[in-house]
């Protein structure tokens, strides 16, 4: 899956029309200016266009003037700055990696910065802004270095995005865990964590602006070399461009830019991915934008327009006192997501299907031992999960309980603990199976119910039901989750199906839908139940809290059906995952088989979400790991993946319940924290084997 820049980039033509470029740039400047002006007239204070004009011309009262000068202008300036730096950082990262999916979000740069800031905040030392931006810079840089280092500079682009999204998920999970461990400020942090551009005075913007300028200047200086990189490493070397040095410089500068944005406004998502994509679309009109030197400022302007536009949109659509409760980042995510989906649907997806992982063929003995070992692990983890918790039990207690002879305390503990353990086991198994099916059908190593927006849609459906019908039962929840998952997957697979599941298109549309659903869930909870952060966390981070046995029935039923189908149709799965032609040659109805497997995958992830919230990562990690351990044949992959998934989520849940007991961390957070290192290890290992 070579996600390459469009060919036009590779050949900067001499026939670039300067007038087109000038017109596009002028249009962007006008748009940003117009949005900034509108933004200044909006806010909670009763200071509209007239008052702003008076204040700017020095004829307004002290109150109105101070609102304009100390609140409105800084906010607009922050929006402009944040959007611009994210747009430029995204452009630089995409140029360096020759990957349209690269951005501060997908390369974990933002997540690294955010974690670094979170760590600094936990120490309780209050730092001056410039020092925190230094910390954010260091965090972002380390994350970028890890991602690029693990994936190998210039190596496969799939690996790059895989490593990046994986690390981002893991880092964000650790940060959210930190927030929960140090919960005094959760309300505020939860909001900040979505990104907001409100400012108290100009200090922040003024301190960050020089850093942004430095980053932009540096990138413009290496712009020509970045253009050369688009030709490919060897060609660039042939032109005398120091490939490695250029890459490192550009990544450092891009990290600096994203760090200023995160310091100023928290992690505002998606702008770094969208702005360059928009500019690519504009470049068809204006060829000057095909060169990095023209593209950088244009992406900056587009980013600024995205952020300011989102802010304006929010304040136009909802009353001002509600709008302040909604973080701007939520809106950029929504706007960006819709935009990304539309773009992806129209994208000319030239990427070919990835060659199947080149894995050693494993013998039957290896499979049997691996499965046996995994089964022992599963039993061990399950037993540990039942015994450990706030109150430690011994096996004898469990035996007594099973025979109905346990004392009061033990019965209580086990009555509440076992459903949670079961929920974790079943959800892990179901998500792993779902991931295996989706990866087989789409032949896309990035495909996963979470990444593809299916889990997000399910969670959105469930949250909608919970906010409208508080006393919904478990079948109702499963139904609502299924409806949500059905809608989102119909959207994702429907849009991606055009021209056969194009690799990039599927993941791009999926990421778009996933982000949109996360943002909508956040929005829904802020608007309906603003002071119930726990509710939000359960749905956004996955939690087995408060599960009762009836809640698990739908999940267990679907899992049994899913396993039966997967095992009985194992040969078909093998064929489908191979390539397009073989099944056709064998006379298999490819489309119908694919559809059936996808429906099953959607069912599995929807019921898992209804039972335990959105637990990401399992669907991605488990199938990969299973293939690495037992080879590619589904008769072996399915059991291995299902066992691994159950072990992973159950371990995560166990840790989440015990590490900071009696307080608890969501299983989703822990899964990501546990899964990330393993996943990165897999990537390194694959590379060492000389893939």
């Amino acid at each position, binding site marked *: 899956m070579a996600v390459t820049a469009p060919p036009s980039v590779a050949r900067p033509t001499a026939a670039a029309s300067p007038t087109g470029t000038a017109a596009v740039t002028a249009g962007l400047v006008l748009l940003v200016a117009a949005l900034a002006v509108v933004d200044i007239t909006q806010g909670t204070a009763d200071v509209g266009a007239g008052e702003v004009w008076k204040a700017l011309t020095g004829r307004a009262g002290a109150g109105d003037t101070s*609102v304009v000068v100390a609140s409105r202008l800084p906010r607009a300036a922050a929006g402009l700055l944040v959007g611009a730096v994210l747009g430029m950082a995204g452009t630089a990262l995409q140029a360096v990696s020759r990957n349209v999916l690269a951005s501060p979000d997908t390369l974990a740069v933002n997540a690294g910065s955010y974690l670094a800031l979170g760590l600094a905040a936990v120490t309780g030392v209050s730092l001056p802004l410039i020092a925190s931006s230094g910390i954010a810079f260091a965090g972002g840089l380390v994350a970028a270095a890890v991602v690029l280092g693990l994936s190998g500079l210039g190596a496969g682009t799939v690996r790059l995005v895989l490593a990046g999204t994986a690390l981002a998920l893991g880092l964000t999970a650790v940060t959210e865990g930190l927030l929960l461990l140090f919960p005094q400020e959760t309300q505020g942090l939860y909001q900040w964590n979505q990104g907001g551009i409100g400012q108290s005075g100009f200090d922040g913007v003024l301190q960050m602006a020089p850093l942004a300028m430095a980053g932009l200047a540096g990138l413009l200086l290496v712009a020509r070399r970045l253009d050369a990189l688009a030709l490919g490493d060897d060609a660039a070397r042939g032109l005398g461009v120091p490939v490695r040095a250029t890459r490192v410089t550009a990544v450092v500068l891009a990290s600096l830019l994203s760090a200023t944005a995160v310091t100023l406004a928290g992690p505002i998502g998606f702008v770094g991915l969208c702005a360059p994509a928009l500019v690519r679309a504009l470049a068809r009109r204006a060829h000057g934008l095909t060169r990095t030197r023209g593209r950088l400022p244009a992406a900056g302007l587009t980013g600024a327009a995205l952020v300011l536009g989102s802010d304006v949109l929010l304040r136009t659509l909802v009353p001002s006192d509600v709008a302040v*409760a909604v973080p701007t980042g939520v809106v950029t995510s929504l706007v960006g997501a819709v935009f990304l989906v539309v773009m992806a649907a129209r994208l000319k997806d030239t990427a070919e299907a990835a060659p199947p992982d080149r894995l050693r063929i494993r013998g039957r003995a290896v499979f049997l031992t691996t499965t046996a070992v995994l089964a022992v692990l599963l039993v061990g983890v399950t037993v540990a999960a039942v015994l450990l*918790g706030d109150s430690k039990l011994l096996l004898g207690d469990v035996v007594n309980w099973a025979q109905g*002879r346990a004392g009061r305390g033990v019965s209580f503990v086990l009555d509440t603990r076992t459903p949670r353990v079961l929920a974790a086991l079943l959800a892990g198994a179901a998500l792993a199976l779902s991931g295996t099916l989706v990866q087989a059908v789409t032949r896309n190593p990035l495909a996963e119910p979470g990444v593809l927006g299916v889990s997000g849609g399910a969670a959105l459906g469930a949250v909608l039901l919970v906010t409208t019908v508080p006393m919904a039962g478990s079948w109702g929840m499963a139904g609502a989750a299924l409806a949500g998952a059905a809608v989102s997957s119909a959207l994702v697979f429907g849009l991606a199906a055009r021209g056969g599941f194009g690799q990039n298109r599927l993941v791009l549309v999926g990421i778009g839908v996933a982000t949109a659903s996360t943002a909508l869930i956040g929005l829904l909870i802020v608007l309906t139940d603003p002071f119930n952060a726990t509710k939000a966390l359960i749905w956004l981070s996955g939690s087995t809290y*408060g599960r009762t046995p009836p809640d698990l029935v739908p999940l267990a039923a679907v899992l049994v059906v899913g396993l039966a189908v997967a095992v009985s149709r194992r040969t078909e799965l093998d064929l489908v995952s191979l390539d397009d032609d073989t099944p056709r040659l064998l006379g298999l109805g490819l489309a119908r088989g694919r559809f059936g497997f996808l429906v099953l995958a959607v069912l599995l992830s929807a019921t898992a979400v209804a039972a335990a919230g959105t637990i990401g990562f399992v669907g991605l990690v488990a199938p990969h790991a299973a293939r690495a351990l037992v080879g590619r044949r589904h008769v072996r992959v399915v059991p291995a993946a299902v066992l691994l998934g159950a072990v992973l989520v159950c371990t995560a849940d166990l840790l989440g319940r015990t590490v900071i007991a009696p307080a608890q961390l969501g299983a989703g957070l822990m899964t990501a924290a546990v899964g990330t290192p393993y996943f990165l290890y897999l990537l390194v290992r694959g590379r060492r084997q000389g893939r």
Partner: protein
Amino acid sequence: MRRLITTAAVATAAALALTSCGTTEPAADAAAPKKQDKAITLTDASGTEVKLDGPAEKVVGTEWHEVELLVSLGVDPVGVADVKGYKTWDQAVPLKNEPKDIGTRGEPSMDTVAALAPDLIVASTDLPPAAVKQLREIAPVIEVRSANASDPLGQMTKNLDLIAEATGTTERAGEIKKDFDNALKEGAKALADAGLDGAAFAFADGYAISRQVSLRPYTSGSLIGAVNERLGLRNAWTVDGDKDYGLGTTDVEGLTELPADVRFAYIGNDGDKSSTPFTGALAKDKVWTSLPFVKKDHVHRLPDGIWMFGGPVSMERYVDALVGELTK
């Protein structure tokens, strides 16, 4: 990798062998007969009928509002959610014992609650229904609606009476209510004497995270808003509050909507650095410093540790502190 997994499996098997057998408590024999003479039946906020064998003594509280009511009724809870937070935010009604921490207010740990073997759990209706269902397996649960913006004071009194009934402390509840009423009457009189009857007043709290300040206006639907009105003050907030706590959301700009003659009061906490933006991030904010009531120094910080969502005793402390500040 394979070696790692194998090692883990071997270790697991060993651990399993070691933990086998043994119990932490003996198997139950026939249950001891319980006394039924003082049985209590009551209906909680969720409409559920709850039966108790007698006045509860070992009580667990999942939300600070209910914990405060328990403590002021003279019942020392055996388990409290987020003990540290309670000690930070509710110094008006300090805990007299060292209760077990049962986890967070949003997700109290079932394990810990179960291990305490309480004879009553006082839960908030904010808990997820599934969690309440599980708690009911452990012990009788009365669900209490911690706040109700359509009648904040009525809801508080109702909660006090309900918990008093379950713990056999109705007499003490009567005293608390009488003291609170007296405090309100005396406070209203003191304010009227100072010429503040009908004065515009706004109470808020706020958070500053990473230089971004968000403020929470306490509208007429909030407990403190209702107390203010009983004191004869006029609530100056025009924003809408949520349906439970009567809290709105605004930013610094939103303060410009307050009338120029407003008196502004807030409660922060030195134990929670993000919670006092008024002395921190806002001190240098031009919007804040140019507000008429800030210039006139009509901003009052009330003592830390008066829990804004507490019960009559917290509110009594609030009335005393506020009247003291405004009539200074």
